[in-house]
């Protein structure tokens, strides 16, 4: 989590020259740029299928595929009684299985793993409240909603809101606004239609 001014400088350099950013062979590379709590969130099914991915540190598409493949292999093959943490390239991946779905978050070495485990659970509880006893299918078909919820929970890799109620209220507000926007649009078009009759 510690922020290093030197790293920030390196970051500046790599940004001014665009091609310098291409370092696909070294997946550790993007991590060094910015310090943050959570580097990425992955939802993988028991069959290894990706249900949701959110990257808070920059990764190329190639690296993302590699990360998912590697971690999927490691996490899915772990027994049920082992710890919910895995070492991975100098980072920690905290995962938890809910029914057939694995929720994984990648954090720094010195972060509090138990806390992250609870952040995962917090997320699942919010999903559960939103979808009403959430199951994997909900997330498969409404992955964008899961993203909206995640965006209210985590921002830039940090926990932004720890109150379930607040998150639920915001999501509901967005949903209802979408609804009213639709109604308004139809009523306005009705008015226009009537006026132009």
């Amino acid at each position: 989590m510690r922020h290093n001014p030197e790293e920030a400088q390196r970051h500046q350099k790599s940004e001014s020259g665009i091609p310098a950013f291409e370092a696909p062979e070294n997946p550790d590379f993007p991590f060094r740029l910015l310090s943050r709590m959570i580097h990425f969130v992955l939802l993988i099914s028991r069959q290894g299928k990706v249900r949701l991915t959110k990257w808070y540190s920059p990764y190329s598409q190639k690296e993302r595929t590699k990360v998912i493949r590697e971690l999927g292999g490691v996490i899915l093959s772990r027994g049920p009684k082992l710890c919910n943490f895995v070492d991975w390239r100098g980072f920690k991946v905290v995962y938890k299985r809910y029914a057939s779905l694995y929720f994984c978050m990648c954090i720094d070495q010195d972060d509090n793993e138990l806390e992250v485990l609870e952040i995962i659970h917090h997320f699942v509880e919010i999903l559960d409240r939103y979808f009403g006893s959430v199951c994997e299918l909900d997330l498969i078909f409404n992955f964008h909603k899961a993203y909206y919820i995640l965006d209210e929970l985590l921002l830039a890799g940090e926990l932004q809101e720890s109150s379930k109620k607040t998150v639920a209220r915001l999501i509901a507000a967005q949903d209802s606004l979408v609804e009213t926007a639709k109604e308004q649009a139809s009523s306005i078009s009705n008015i226009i239609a009537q006026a132009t009759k």
Partner: protein
Amino acid sequence: MGSQGGFYQSKEFLDLVKSIGEARSKAEEDRIVLSEIETLKRRISEPDIPKRKMKEYILRLVYIEMLGHDASFGYIHAVKMTHDDSLLVKRTGYLAVTLFLNEDHDLIILIVNTIQKDLKSDNYLVVCAALNAVCKLINEETIPAVLPQVVELLGHPKEAVRKKAIMALHRFYQKSPSSVSHLISNFRKRLCDNDPGVMGATLCPLFDLIAQDVNSYKDLVISFVSILKQVAERRLSKAYDYHQMPAPFIQIKLLKILALLGSGDKQASETMYTVVGDIFKKCDSSSNIGNAVLYECICCVSSIYPNTKLLDSAADAISRFLKSDSHNLKYMGIDALGRLIKISPEIAEQHQLAVIDCLEDPDDTLKRKTFELLYKMTKSTNVEVIVDRMIGYMISINDNHYKTEIASRCVELAEQFAPSNQWFIQTMNKVFEHAGDLVNIKIAHNLMRLIAEGFGEDDDNADSKLRSSAVESYLHILGEPKLPSVFLQVICWVLGEYGTADGMFSASDVTGKLCDVAEAYSSNETVKAYAVTALMKIYAFEIAAGRKVDMLPECQSLMEELLASHSTDLQQRAYELQAVIGLDVHAVECIMPLDASCEDIEVDKGLSFLDGYIQEAIEKGAQPYIPESERSGLINMGNFRNQNHHESLHGLRFEAYELPKPAESAEPEPMYPRETYQTPVSPIPSNPSDAGSAELKLRLDGVQQKWGRPTYTPETSTSNSTSQKSVNGASAVNSTREAYASRKPQVEISHEKQKLAASLFGGTSKPEKRPATGHKVSKASSHMVEKSHVPNSSMEVAPEKAAPAQPPPDLLDLGEPTATSTAPSLDPFKQLEGLLDTTQDALAANSATTASRSPDVMALLYADTPIGIHNKDDADLLSGLSNPSVTNMAGATARPRLSQSSSKGSNPKDSLEKDALVRQMGVNPSSQNPNMFKDLLG
């Protein structure tokens, strides 16, 4: 409530998801996705697509990109979508761009304008969506474009907006600290926001800021402590409760901050003791979140200025973690132990058996954490056992990343604590053999240096013993197939220098082996070069010793091959070898003196051997050389020029030209005509150039200096062990008392484990610790006494005995050691209870005073800004925090809800309805994973 809002996508999309769900192989999935990409490419570029359709296309793009395919063809459409007026569409657009684009993407410039506009929107949801995008997409160059608006939003009436604005500002700070350095006071101000969510979010940037510069934030210690106190006392709104804990995530963040602020600061730490002690007591150790907070408390306690009472609580918490059945808690316990032993090293001893169990656990994660702990507690007494274990583990894993790490740790420990040369060489051999290609080349150089120079003592006998043991082990190891290149280089070098030095091995033995190496690794030129040079040395030593040199036939054929090698380096080495063999004894002694690697190379900086030549040239009319510094007009720049000039003296330059500097233009002086430079004299400065000599010496200086047994290690180890003893003496009294208190019958602990424990933990306190516990154990402990008092030299035997002696059944008695170690945990509780009365009184008094005092303090803190506003803010915060409705009721009401949700989770009716709905949509649940219908929380 939300699920009915779903499933509104078109049949096409549902079919896509369904067919991917049913794909039997990755190849099949890829085929489906590729055809989907084709469809989308075609559709998305059609003109006049209705917004609703477009929105779906974009979501389909998100989907295929999530599956690992490239959807970059559609990025621009996602960008366009953010421009839309309708929030519904805009939100999808923002979601897609934050998922698609990294902050360095070219398209970002097209979004900045929209973001600017949206940040000014009247609708706070639009602003929220834009702020989400700001956090992900705004890079250093575009920060100034949105910064004013983001700062303005810090005062937005909606707390959600303020929260996100804080997070955005935090991101700006991370990306480019200078761009927001003038705005840092905003973070302090927001700490007093009356919304706990905003306050919680503000802790993230403050943590970063404090981590960088602790001293500027010492004034906030009191505020943090009072906030933490209020949080722990359930003064926050019930909405922040999580599993009956009051705002645990905020507590954790605050503890992290306090750990930073209290580190090495006694005064600041003292203000924290009460509240941290409180939290220790209040944490519910049966819930996971309670343990998370406990763990953070331990981290905090081990970071701030030590306090005995808190250390005791921390030690209790650790022992509860370690005794738990949960692997997660064991893991956290080991980690916490690693933090605490820095302050109180004796604590590890209480838990030795638990630690050993973790070390032998089949769970890799736990094992690695335990190795980390062992690494932290390595001393000269237990280094052999620990390093031996580490190497054993290193050999067994395939993960290169971790292998490298553990290999370098082994080397580090071996260098610091090695009890004997022999052991050091053997350890290094093992490390190189199994991870040679992963370790830093410096380590190899260091090893060669050690073998050449010995331990720096004037005991030549010991040094030559070290060398011959190295040679012997290397000749043995060369029989193994596939050695890493770095290791082979070390072997070749050592064999070349010392292969025949002690007369144990004949030149033909050693040269034969070297030829084998060159042949077996014929594709590796570096190794070959090392081998050829080693051959040359051995032949030279033979000649110098007056023996007749018989070149082995395989050696001759190797030479023939190398004389015609494509590599000029190898060719040159081969020719040199040929030339050396032809010389007489005297000449060979001059070129290849025995054991010359330790001699310092003296550089004749004055190049005096050229004097005659120069004299001759001057007599012939050449101009004498004038050092640059003495040339007129350049005196001032002398230093400056020396710096960048010496490189150009060496001829070819491979770097690009530097930008012209003022000194360069002043160079050609009319007094010195061109011819001067062309005479053979001029390129050789008669005055020494410092740079040249420095470069020549580099080879010797760059090597790590860590190996220094006579100076460093003995000191630390002795001081360690003495301090250890005294502390142990104290703790031992405790533990015997505890042992009496325990009524549980002692279960016999496996002999091997005890041995291992004794060798790991030094066993200094063992004899006092165990005697009361029973007959069997006391027997074992007497064994340990023996063990622990064995002098170092015989300790070498211990690793061999202890390491392989872990029969698999041992792994199964995980439960055993808890029986012995439950005893200590009982007593401290009693102690705590005794303390409770006094502390509680103090607490009550404290809470009363802080409540009334803190507004003043806060006002003082922000004296630089208008006081009126702040007073109000503070009052708000306090009124928000001091919500009296929060009592134990919260816990009581929360419980039924939870159980409700769990019963709801297993409700089959719900799942059935969903199933029916899905079928209706034309998606049949694939029989292979009915789990998909299972509630996640069920």
